[in-house]
């Protein structure tokens, strides 16, 4: 199964993300979800980045809107543009869901 999960909040119930599996799992950090890619709350990076087997993407437009740049993104996340995001969800993922 090709599954794309969107995270759009800094605070959300992570239980589903922790448990779900897919042969091709993409986690898209958008809107306030982008904070997971740049903040180290209490010195620790977000647990979202540690999701096993997932490819984590972060939307550059939403990063820059909030005063961050791609240079600050954790190495485990790929910075993508809105155009990239559209291509990925149209070509690489058959199911989309918002957490």
């Amino acid at each position, binding site marked *: 199964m090709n599954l794309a999960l969107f995270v*759009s*909040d*800094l*605070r959300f119930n992570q239980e589903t993300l922790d448990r779900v599996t897919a042969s091709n799992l993409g986690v898209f950090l958008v*809107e*306030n979800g982008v*904070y997971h890619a740049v*903040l*180290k*709350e*209490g*010195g620790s990076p977000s647990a979202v980045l540690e999701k096993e087997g997932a490819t984590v993407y972060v939307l550059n*437009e*939403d990063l*820059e*809107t*909030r*005063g*961050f*740049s791609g240079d600050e993104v954790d190495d485990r996340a790929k910075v993508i543009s809105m155009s990239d995001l559209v291509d990925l969800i149209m070509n690489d993922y058959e199911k989309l869901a918002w957490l």
Partner: protein
Amino acid sequence: MGLSILFLVQTPPYKSENPKLALTHALAGPLTELHIDEEVKTTVAFVGDGVLNCLKDQKSMDHWDITSTEQHLRNLLLSDVPVMVCKEDLEKFGISKDRLVDATEMGAEISIEVVPFSEIQAKIDEATALMCF
């Protein structure tokens, strides 16, 4: 005796309009004096995830064609509305003071004050009204 209103912002910017609403309301406060015979002082304090509103270099106009929360903050500073941000919460996110919005190059005479929560608590105690966003 005048009114003092403290706007407490606890949520991050953009996904919700709440933080911007707090800022526009706080900016309207001093203008209210023109219409009522009473002094109205407003202060804005950012706590928790709300401190993320205060980061500079927000590019919302470039990407989405909307005014930035940064611009709203600058308007407050240019209007001499005090803006406080919680020191402990900034430190929790590892955000340094030099990353905060500043309007002094635009002529503002005040800057965002980084203060311990105890000072925000003191403002809560002395305010006539507290509005949480």
